[in-house]
């Protein structure tokens, strides 16, 4: 495949928990805890996991929308966190994000044209006269009509707003787009429109996506490789067919078996996990999954398993493999 576009090494993001009158730090929520992966050009890397597993925080920290606690992020070989504010600003158009909530992600007081064209103007990417042409082009790519340019976000439905959000990212000609649950808030029949749109755009422009979702079926459809997160850590990462056919981590197995499949004739062996996800402020020792793992051994509660390649680019962190 093509060259490595993004490289994440041991990324950590801890949120301090503050308490008391003087707001002292009494602990940390380990939202992202030692995550490493690489993303190639034109590739889609899916991230799945349950709520609170840190997948969105990972996406936002990579874009330096949040500050890191530790680790490194290299985008096109540049260390994102060592850039000055000015350098960061100039690199921003190359890495974009699409948000989950199509309602709060668009400024209600700006027209669609302003929303999409704003960054072009601010970065002086094209001359003023050209802005409108670029916006119209982006609208068309995203399946919106030219006359939508003068309208306001509240006049659009959820799916259309998501298209506007995509156009806003697209117009800057980015290389890398973080898609943070872009279809989760949409109805089923609209979801597929947006998924298809993202696929078509990738085909056309060769974007790399980091596709974050809790929906395993959608992630499987859109991604080339898929990573599974649990409590801030990547537990398994592999090519999608490999991962879905041959899951190695017990959590991945349980997750896959829990997804309801629209086929009433299918009878499956289902692994039902006991208990709830522990709080990321106080994660279990050793392997974080050991409290719910049906195959747990003594070593699991004592030692953190290494995230390692078990062959053919299939990464997993489990003592049993």
């Amino acid at each position, binding site marked *: 495949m093509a060259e490595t576009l993004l490289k994440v090494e041991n990324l950590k993001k801890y949120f301090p928990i503050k308490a008391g009158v003087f707001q002292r730090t009494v602990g940390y929520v380990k939202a992202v805890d030692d995550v490493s992966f690489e993303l190639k050009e034109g590739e889609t890397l899916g991230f799945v996991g349950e709520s609170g597993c840190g997948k969105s925080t990972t996406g936002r920290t990579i874009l330096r929308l949040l500050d890191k606690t530790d680790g490194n992020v290299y985008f096109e070989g540049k260390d994102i966190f060592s850039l000055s504010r000015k350098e960061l600003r100039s690199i921003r158009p190359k890495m974009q994000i699409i948000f989950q909530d199509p309602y709060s992600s668009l400024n209600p007081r700006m027209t669609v044209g302003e929303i999409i064209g704003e960054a072009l103007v601010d970065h002086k990417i094209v001359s003023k006269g050209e802005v409108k042409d670029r916006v119209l082009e982006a609208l068309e790519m995203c399946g919106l009509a030219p006359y939508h340019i003068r309208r306001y976000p509240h006049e659009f439905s959820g799916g259309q707003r998501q298209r506007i959000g995509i156009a806003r990212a697209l117009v800057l000609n980015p290389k890398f787009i973080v898609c943070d649950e872009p279809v989760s808030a949409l109805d089923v029949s609209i979801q*597929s429109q947006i998924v*298809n749109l993202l696929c078509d755009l990738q085909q056309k422009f060769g974007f790399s996506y980091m596709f974050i979702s809790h929906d395993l*079926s*959608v992630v499987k*459809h859109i991604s080339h490789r898929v990573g599974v997160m649990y409590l801030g850590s990547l537990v398994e990462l592999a090519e999608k067919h490999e991962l879905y056919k041959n899951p190695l981590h017990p959590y991945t197995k349980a997750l896959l078996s829990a997804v309801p499949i*629209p086929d009433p004739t299918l009878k499956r062996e289902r692994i039902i996990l006991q208990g709830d996800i522990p709080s990321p402020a106080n994660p279990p020792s050793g392997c974080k999954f050991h409290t719910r793992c049906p195959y747990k051994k003594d070593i699991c509660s004592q030692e953190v398993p290494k995230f390692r390649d078990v062959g053919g680019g299939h990464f997993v962190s489990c003592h049993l493999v």
Partner: protein
Amino acid sequence: MGELLSIKNLKTYFYTEDGVIKAVDDVSLTIREGETLGVVGESGCGKSITAMSILKLIPNPPGKIVSGEIIFEGKDLTKATDSEIRKIRGNKISVIFQEPMTSLNPVFTIGDQIIEAIVLHQNMNREQAREKAIDMLKLVGIPRANEVVDAYPHELSGGMRQRAMIAMAMACNPKLLIADEPTTALDVTIQAQILDLMRELKNKTNTSIMLITHDLGVVAEMADHVVVMYAGKIVEEADVFEIFKNPLHPYTIGLLESKPILNQDKERLNSIPGQVPNPLNMPEGCYFHPRCSKAMDICRKEQPKLCSVKDGHKVACHLYKEVK
């Protein structure tokens, strides 16, 4: 299996400043004893409003049940007085909502809320009710039930809260459980736990379930009979095997094809073009025709009626002919 609840030609409208919204428009359906009826549709299709109409939980104004009958145990609930309805609510028919945090009262303990329901509807004093509440919590698989009974809702996790909601709903051995998107707010592994629990309880108590969801996977796993709704109307109705094997309405087909399926690979998803129509400005004829790839002239003029095309398979589409 006898009929437990039957809705006939229900119309629930909302009168807003901008016009009348026909949230439920001439819906008829039947729930049999011990059966799980899946009601599927996208947001705004009227599936929740249909369920809320059963218990008269429609905010009035602006909402109003305009016409139709809801027959439950031989009585028409649309004509029942408020006190009659209150006797049925939480007793013979209970509801589980999507967001357990907002449907549990944060200032009372879990136990208090279950006990209240039991004392209200069953001939028990508080002591006995408390015992029963603990039993119910155990039944829904809550560990340390005798401690959790004194916990406040915020002390429980999302999955546990939903379990507590189910315990509360099942406390009075209802005949019908209305589950309005019971697992939508939950994670997949927790969803699997809750669905498993609901199935188990149904087998134990023979309660009928009206399961409202947008997730076809959940329907396939849980339901015996399925109703598909679009824009306030039922477009297709059949038993669960039939609807997944042989869907007829273009909307049902579109829904099934637009969802990626975990154990299958598709090059490209089939999507239904366009948007759900604005409820204030419904298209003429069949409400689905602007998005339908098989729309004919008649679809633009005449609204199709829900008719039987096969034994137990009803569809509202001009493509199919009624079979007597």
